[in-house]
Structure formats: structure tokens, C-alpha cells
């Protein structure tokens, strides 16, 4: 899986993204740190699962990787080389997105053929004939019949639309695909088809995924590594099997406790999570998670947690002051 001798295909080095937001009509804008210094490495053919509550910064991170947002500070590296703003077009070719909502992410007035060919047209790749050939190959690849080519999104089911979105992402021959909640809007019987397809495509094409999902069972199924975000920071990152077998950060533990496996002998778990998600404009001092943490100590209320890195991953928490992993 992760080959440590080659540089990661994708790396975020201490990336921050700050938005200026106004809370009221007359108040001055205040900074919202959507990403508060994120460092992540994704190796070839890895599936990095990214989890955390809504508002923690997952989509912002995806947009930075896609070049759709410029980081406030920090670096994005592809194959160990920093991507400058001038090279964003190159970045866009190698990194393609699949978004959550197959209904709103496809232009309703464009035919399926035009939708899938659009990235090629935008990047001036090939001529009409070669583009048509690529589109037809993509349909086969994602399991759509050729007859949908001249049709429109509203003639397709949710699952078929998501296949179109996948075809559009893959037509550029990307190395990395950013999947932001790709199956959240789909019924379970359709979700499983799309997950199987994503798994097959990774094998066939040697793809690398960043896979954002709120469904931890799905992440456990697909991911090779998992990063857990809380309020703009990655608080734990580890190989998937290790993280699910032994979550170290109290927030990761609470997230895993919230997973409702279909076992009729169990009841709804107590997540030991107190208060609700904090206001990102005024995050709690010390460890941002401390008001909800079941294992909070005095030091957590005043002092930011240490970044405890080991060979396999990291955890940001006062409980883990010495590296073990």
C-alpha cells in the first residue's frame, strides 16, 4: 500500500484556510479558520477516508486539493513538488472530483455526452472524434449503456447520474479522485453498486482516492487510511484497520461508538458526547474538543494538545504525550 520510499502523490503541508465571515448585518467580519493547519499525505493507490461532523472542514480541504480554493497559508504538493497557483490547471487534470449530489452537480440542459466530454473540451484535449471515443469508453467503464449518450440527466436514476459524475471525473485520466460524500444521497441498494464500482476502478486504473463520508461503516469498508477532523484540524490519522480496532483520540472513539451496526441485540449507544458542536468563529481554548470530551483533564482547557506522531500516523491529544504508533 503506502510505499514510504516514494513521495506521496498528494501532500498538504500545514495548510490553513481562513474565511472572513459576518455574523450580523452590522458586525465587523471575523476570521473563521475552516482549516487550522492541516498536514496530510496520500500515497498512490491509498484510499484516505476523511471523517468528522459537518462544518469541520472536509469540503474545504477537498476544494483546496482540487485547486478550487487557494490556501491562506501552507503548501499543496503533488509527487513531492509544490503546486503554485500558476500550475493549478495542471493540478486540475490530475485530480478530479465526484460530489455528493448527483442531482445538482450535473447541468440539466446538457446531454450526457456533453457532460462527460466537458473536462476534455475545457482543457482542449483531443478533437471531436477522439472525445466521442473517450466518452464511449467511459460509459463502458462505469457500466452505463451507450443509449444514454444523447439523453439528459433528468432521464436517469440517482445511481445512473452518479455513474455519469464518475465518468466525467475519469475522462481526464486522473491519478487522484476526490469523492465528497459520493453515496450519501443514494439508496442503500444503489450505494453498494457505486461503492463496488469505485473499488473496481481503483484496482483497474490504479487510482488514489480521498474519500469523504459521514458513514463510518462505508469508510471502514473502503479506506486504507483514515483521517479524523475536528474543527479544522486532523486530530487523528492512522491505517484504517488500526484506527477502527483501536481509536486513540477521544473524539474518534465517540464517532466509532455512534456507528449503528444492524444488530437487533444492541440498543442505541451512549456516545458520551456532551454539548453540541462549537461555534467555529469562537472555538474553545486549549483543545477545541475539551467541552465535549469524556476524558478531559485540566491541561486540556488551557493548552492546545501536542501533535503526537509515530511511524504509522498521529494523534493530537494530551492523553497520548508519548508516541506509540
Amino acid at each position, binding site marked *: 500500500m503506502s510505499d514510504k520510499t516514494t513521495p506521496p502523490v498528494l501532500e498538504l503541508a500545514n495548510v490553513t484556510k481562513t474565511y472572513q465571515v459576518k455574523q450580523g448585518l452590522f458586525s465587523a467580519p471575523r476570521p473563521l479558520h475552516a482549516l487550522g493547519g492541516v498536514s496530510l499525505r496520500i500515497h498512490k493507490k491509498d484510499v484516505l477516508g476523511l471523517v468528522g*461532523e459537518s462544518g469541520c472542514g472536509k469540503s474545504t480541504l477537498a476544494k483546496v486539493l482540487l485547486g478550487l480554493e487557494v490556501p491562506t497559508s501552507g503548501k499543496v504538493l503533488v509527487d513531492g513538488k509544490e503546486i503554485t497557483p500558476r500550475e493549478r490547471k495542471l493540478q486540475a487534470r490530475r485530480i478530479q472530483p465526484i460530489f455528493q449530489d448527483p442531482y445538482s452537480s450535473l447541468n440539466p440542459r446538457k446531454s450526457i455526452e456533453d457532460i462527460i466530454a466537458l473536462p476534455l473540451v475545457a482543457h482542449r484535449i483531443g478533437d471531436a472524434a477522439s472525445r466521442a471515443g473517450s466518452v464511449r469508453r467511459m460509459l463502458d467503464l462505469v457500466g452505463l449503456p451507450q443509449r444514454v449518450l444523447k439523453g439528459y440527466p433528468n432521464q436517469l436514476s440517482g445511481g445512473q447520474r452518479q455513474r455519469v459524475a464518475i465518468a466525467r471525473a475519469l475522462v481526464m485520466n486522473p491519478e487522484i479522485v476526490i469523492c465528497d460524500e459520493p453515496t450519501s444521497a443514494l439508496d442503500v441498494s444503489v450505494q453498494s453498486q457505486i461503492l463496488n464500482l469505485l473499488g473496481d476502478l481503483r484496482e483497474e486504473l490504479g487510482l488514489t482516492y480521498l474519500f469523504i463520508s459521514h458513514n463510518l461503516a462505508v469508510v471502514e*469498508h473502503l479506506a486504507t487510511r483514515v483521517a479524523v477532523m475536528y474543527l479544522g484540524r486532523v486530530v487523528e490519522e492512522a491505517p484504517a484497520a488500526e484506527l477502527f480496532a483501536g481509536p486513540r483520540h477521544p473524539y474518534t472513539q465517540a464517532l466509532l461508538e*455512534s456507528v449503528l451496526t*444492524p444488530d*437487533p441485540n444492541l*440498543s*442505541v449507544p*451512549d456516545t458520551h*458526547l456532551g454539548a453540541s*458542536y462549537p461555534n467555529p468563529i469562537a472555538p474553545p481554548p486549549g483543545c477545541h474538543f475539551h467541552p465535549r470530551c469524556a476524558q478531559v483533564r485540566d491541561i486540556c482547557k488551557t493548552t492546545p494538545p501536542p501533535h503526537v506522531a509515530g511511524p504509522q500516523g498521529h494523534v493530537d491529544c494530551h492523553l497520548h504525550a508519548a508516541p506509540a504508533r
Partner: protein
Amino acid sequence: MTTEPILKVENLTIDVPMAQGTLHAVRGIDFELRRGETLCIVGESGSGKSLTSLALMGLLPKKMRCKAAGLDFSGIDLQRQTPKAMRALRGDRMAMIFQEPMTSLNPAYTIGDQLMEALLLHRPVSKAEARARAIELLGKVGITAAESRLGQYPHQLSGGLRQRVMIAMALMCEPELIIADEPTTALDVTIQAQILRLLADLQREMNMAMILVTHDLGVVARIADKVVVMYAGEVVENGSAREIFENPRHPYTRGLLRCIPVPGKTKPGEHLGSIPGIVPSLIGKVEGCAFRSRCEVAEDACSSPVPVRRPGTDHAYRCIHDIPEGASA
């Protein structure tokens, strides 16, 4: 259990007139529920779960046609109630919680006003008593500093808090029946677990009957006493939660259960089960088993009326095959 059911639904059908013909959205479903029980209605989108809940509450859009051989709530024939009588029942003896709390909360009024109104509408109490009850219930649904919340407006609260307020509002009059339609679908998993636990606790404490509508099998397994599995407007299988999860019979139920990855059971990365094809159109005449276009064991006989089979007293499914326990469909 020997007590009388508080809710009896017999052969409920809901037709929706459409430009292209009649949509047979709900096609003859039956179930019943006792006090203190939680029934989950589970099925994919469009299977008729929400229309069924709305029909029970008398909230179906006017253009829809609803009929039933029996629609009995606590001895009251719901089909024969005037709109005024239904309004009196709603929010009092039966209450509903929706997926998006903003559909039921009025953005122009404070939380306190809306909670108090829910009680003042149905009970001869003073404003002070209503206020005290509002504070009590906000506390019950786990909202801290309840008193200071009364003056807040819905948009000032997070999604999770709003859903708690909705639950408090539904419980103001201590209803006998509560219907929750996808109450946690829009929430984070952590908040989902908290809200479901809260609902389960309150349901037990108040000895209510609860119908929880969801598409999430994990939610069903953890909270249901009884389960109704719907497909294309029909109940294809129903039974105790244990029977449905440990001994499912209907090919659709079995198919669904194979589609979801189960930590500790599904091998990471291996192919998940899937159900090929899509749900058929329910516009116009619908005959036989609606699942047959997607069913691996379908036969010619599936296009004729399909018998109901009862493998146990608390378990029934609708299929031409007598499907043995545990055998894969």
C-alpha cells in the same frame, strides 16, 4: 402482549392522481401497534413511508385519495373524523416529528411561544403553567439553560438542537402515539445517536407508541420492536426486529441487508451485495410482486397475486416461494 393495539391499519391504499395516470403510492398495507412499542417502517425512497405517516396524521395533500378497511386509533375511526376533529387530535393525542424541523417550526416566533402554543391549543392551562411545562420538556430533551432558550428563534439553533426542540414540542401534551419521519437523517452520526437515544428513553418513560420511519437499517435494528419493510408501496415483510435481522425471508429484505457493509462482518474491500435494476413505475395498473424486475428468484407466477406466508406468529412475508430459514435467496 395481550393489550389491545392503540393503532390498527388495515388495507390502507393511497392513490395520487398524476398527469400520466394514477400513481398507486401505497397499495394495501396492514400493521398494528401497542402502547410502549416502537414500530419501524423501513424502505428505500419512494416506497410510500412518508405518505403512510401523513395519512395516519390526516395530513395528506388534498388531491390524494386515501382509503382503508380500518384506520383505528385508540377506538377512534380516523377515516370518519372531520378536519376539525383531526386538528384536535394532532399535537394532543398523536404527534409528528419531521426530518427537517424547520418545516414545522415557525421562523417568526420564539421557541418558547411555539412550545407554549402547543399546550395552550389543547389544554385549559394558564400561560405560566404552559411556560413551566415548556421549560420542563426542554430539560427532558437535554437542552441546558432551558429558560434562556425560550426567547430564542429557531434559526439561532443548530440542526441537532432544533430537532430536540421539535421533539419537546411533539411531547408537550404527552401523546399516546408519536410518528417520527426520518428524524435524524439530516444530522451527523454523533447527533443522530444522541437524538435516537433520547427518543427511545422518552418513549419508554411516557409509555408511548412510536412509529419511526427510516431508510437506515442500522437505526431500525437498534430501536425497533417491530419492523415493516416496504417496497413500492407494499409491505413485503414484517416481524419482530430480531426475526427481520436474524432470519429475514423476503428476497428484497435479504438483498438490502447484503448491500450494507457491516463492520466486523463484511471483509473490507470485498464486493458488497447489490440489487440490480430500479423500482418500477407505480403509475397505472400494478399487478403481482413489484419486486420481480429485480428479483433473482422470480418466476412467471410472480406476476399474479402473491400469497402472504407466516413462518411464525410474529413474522410474515409476501412471496410465491416458501423460503426456508437461513437459505440464501
